[in-house]
């Protein structure tokens, strides 16, 4: 019995004009999302390569490590092709210095606001907004439409149990629609290498988990819609209720949870913290000022070594100051980031009421474009800072925290042309994204939540139909 209903459901879907039109639209959208995403990724990649190259050129043009203004750049994540996440919203460049605070700047949208106007359309958006809407359109009359057509009565004039019917209906429409969706998706995946996006095995694995999450998410909306259809009499009412649910899940819950968490956890204004840090820094500098004025060359210093002596004096002072600043700032930063993370955690947990945000969270997590991208980038930049500081110490004898421009005027005779610097000597910044198993572990909770949502709403549809008035 289940089999007949299942096959009937598949056939009913495939032969409807509703399916033909929406399948065509979805396919176009999905393929477009792949193409536009690849385009977007490639231009980010080109910008990244250019930034790295320019940085190397800049180093090579110098003859003194002291003068180098090194910056590191966040490489674009290949999976941002499909799940943009926050990758366009976070700073990509960090001007390196041997110590002190680092700040990532040059977000893609700040650099190119034109793309911020309409934003990008990625696969996550297509699933989150468009496909969930299509699930509504497909299933809003799944039960009550059959009732209106009289087919429900005709079916149940046969020895058919309700459980079989609803199970066949749910599984049939789920399989039918998701297999149909998989066609353009798989074509898109096959297009990726052709479009120039090369993925590693790990990334392919992540991508397949993203797709599984997408299908699960689609299943949630399908089940919700069928449950609504099994609890209402008129299809038009079912559609309306479905639309309201959709608006709540997609638009309202995620944003209000951010709003609510902002109310509950009070995170201080970041600029006020900056002001506090500034005050402290100036205060320390003022304290050091008299020491600087009273600087005397140690007895018996050769004049040629005067500059070096002065430098090491300044550098010692600066180091002492910086140490205090570092402690102070670290405390402030930690307090701030603890509060901020608490706020984030709360907001994200609250938003998980909505399957849409669960989906967003799991896909960004897997694609490496979640909030963690920013955290990881900063963490790795600070790790790199140590290597950089060591390197600079070795090359210049100072870790360059004073930052003044020196103009050497030699009044002596001609000197040898100094050698240009070799950028390869500098330790390289390598941003290591998450491995598949890390990403999968991080996304596990949300993935299970999606499965749970499916079970709940499938169960809900089941229950609703068992009590459905067939007349």
């Amino acid at each position, binding site marked *: 019995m289940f089999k007949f209903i299942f096959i009937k459901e598949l056939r009913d879907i495939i032969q409807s004009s509703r399916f033909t*039109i929406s399948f065509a*639209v979805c396919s176009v959208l999905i393929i477009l999302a792949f193409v*536009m995403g690849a*385009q977007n990724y490639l*231009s980010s990649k*080109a*910008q990244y390569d250019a930034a790295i190259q*320019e940085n190397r*050129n800049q180093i090579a*043009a110098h003859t003194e490590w002291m003068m180098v*203004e090194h910056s590191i*750049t966040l490489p674009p994540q290949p999976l941002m092709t499909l799940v943009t996440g*926050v990758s366009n*919203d*976070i700073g990509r460049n960090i001007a390196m210095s041997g110590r002190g605070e680092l700040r990532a*700047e040059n*977000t893609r*949208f*700040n*650099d*190119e*606001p*034109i793309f*911020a*106007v*309409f934003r990008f359309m990625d696969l996550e958006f297509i699933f989150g*907004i*468009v496909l969930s809407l299509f699930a509504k*359109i497909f299933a809003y009359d799944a039960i009550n439409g059959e009732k209106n057509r009289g087919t429900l009565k005709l079916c149940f004039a046969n020895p058919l149990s309700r459980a079989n019917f609803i199970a066949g209906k749910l599984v049939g429409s789920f399989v039918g629609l998701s297999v149909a969706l998989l066609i353009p998706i798989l074509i898109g995946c096959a297009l990726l290498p052709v479009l120039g996006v090369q993925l590693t095995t790990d990334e392919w694995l992540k991508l397949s988990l993203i797709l599984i999450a997408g299908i699960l998410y689609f299943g949630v909306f399908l089940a919700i819609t069928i449950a609504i259809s099994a609890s209402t009499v008129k299809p*038009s*009412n079912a559609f*309306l209720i479905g639309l309201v649910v959709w*608006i709540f899940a997609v638009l309202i819950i995620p*944003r209000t949870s*951010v*709003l609510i968490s902002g109310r509950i956890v009070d995170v201080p204004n*970041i*600029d006020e913290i900056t*002001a506090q840090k*500034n*005050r402290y820094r*100036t205060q320390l500098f003022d304290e050091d*000022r008299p020491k*600087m*004025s009273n*600087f005397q*060359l140690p007895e018996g210093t050769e*004049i040629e070594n005067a*500059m070096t002596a002065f430098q090491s004096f300044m550098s010692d002072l600066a180091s002492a100051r910086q140490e205090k600043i570092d402690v102070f700032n670290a405390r402030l930063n930690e307090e701030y980031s603890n509060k*901020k993370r608490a*706020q*984030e955690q709360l*907001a994200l947990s609250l938003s998980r009421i909505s399957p849409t*945000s669960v989906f*967003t969270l799991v896909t960004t997590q897997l694609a490496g474009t979640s909030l963690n991208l920013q955290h990881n980038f900063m963490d790795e930049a600070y790790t790199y800072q140590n290597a950089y500081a060591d390197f600079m110490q070795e090359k210049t004898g100072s870790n360059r925290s004073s930052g*003044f*421009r020196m*103009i050497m*005027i030699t*009044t002596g005779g001609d000197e040898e042309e100094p050698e240009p610097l070799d950028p390869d000597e500098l330790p390289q910044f390598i941003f290591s994204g998450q491995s598949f198993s890390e990403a999968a572990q991080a996304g596990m909770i949300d993935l299970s939540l999606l499965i749970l949502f499916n079970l709940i709403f499938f169960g809900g549809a089941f229950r609703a139909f068992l009590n459905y008035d067939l007349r």
Partner: protein
Amino acid sequence: MFSLLLQKELKNIITSPKFTATFLVCSLLILISVFIGINEYENAVAQYQANQEIARQNIAEATSWGRVRNLLHREPNPVQIFVSGVHFDVGRLSNISDYNDVKLVRSPYSDETLFAIFRVIDFAFIVQIVLSLFAILFTYDAINGEREQGTLKLAFANSISRAKYLIAKFSGIWLGLIVPLLIPILLGMLMLIAFKVPLASTDWLSIISLVGLSVLYISLFIVIGILVSAITRSSSLSFLLLLVIWISGVLIVPRLGVMAAGQIVQVESVAQIEAKQEAFQKARWDDYSAELTEVWQEREAQMEGMSDEERTAYRDEMEWTWLEEDDASRKQVQSDIITNNRRLLEESQNRKKLQEQLAFNIARISPVASFQLAAMKLAGTDVGLKNRYETSMRLYKDDFSEYIQQKEAEEGGHGGFNISIDSEQGVQIDFGRNDQTLDTSEMPQYQSPELRLQDTVGAALFDFGFLGVCIVLGFGGSVLAFMRYDLR
């Protein structure tokens, strides 16, 4: 006859559960969006004030004119409550100093990435996505639904002209949808007053124009709905067609326009431009070093053959002149760098403008893009926001530098350290003045770029007109289609 039809249409809408549900959802959405908008605006104001505080501190703590630098912050604009536009994407503040060019950094989204995940919803977003969807929901079966119910035949069994019927239909739906929408919008405006958002009269004008624009936009979707309903036989087909139109109009065309323009007009990335600027800067300073070395060698050459006392005397005599000479050429270098930087920037900005123009014109194939662009223009959060601020900050920077230089000249000191290494006297360091604070009362004050009416409402006029033309065309089309509609 007309009023009877109109009444029927109104009743039909207002008594339907569809209406109750959509009205409640829309009201909730609009109020939430205004609330979020006000919240974000207040945050932005707090940041703005904190930054002014930082700037004041920095200036107050500077002990020499050379160390004075300013920090400018983009001033939040209350209309962004309704249309956030690119506000969250564009940097908020820029350092103003002699050594760095103006550059807005630290966009609100990059500071508060949490908001970037789900994005902020604003009034314009709700109108653009949700209300247009609702407009479709109310019109997809306007004509063919009546045919399916058989009421179309019944109505035309009486002596009614088709044109009159259609106009009554449109007016009824229009009144039934727009008037209730105005209720939450008005409540939203009351919220502005309740939260004491400071609004100038031009802001009110912008908001009112925005409401007008939204009404036009929704009317367009009503017209499109009626048109599609009048050219199809079954309401299920027209619903699907309308959804396809909605998806392509709202989601696809605008983004495709931008993508296409990005492909056609290539613009160098900011990093690339900065690299070019840096390269020039470095080359220029290297030249300067070489030049200076030469000059000093020349000066040394002039002292050739003098005795030590003569040398010292000559030096003391010439010191001031030399210093001035060196200083002049240093300033020349700086101004060369600035000129070059600005030239490069201007070139890239021109290309960007070209790209934007192209992108937006392609995007305008869809009236949705037209609405969004006009709404952003009205709120002053359009794509030109960053440029506008950076340009005005650059102008300020010129004034600021001039003021600082003048002050420096008056004080006669140089900024920063002055270290002289001499074979006789050893190393001497002059930190400039370090006791009193500076009198900065005459320092030029930064004025945010003023948004004049012609920049907001004026710039949006084209899109207003475009939407109007679309409505007229759509309505004409539906009249034509309905004239030939097969009533059976």
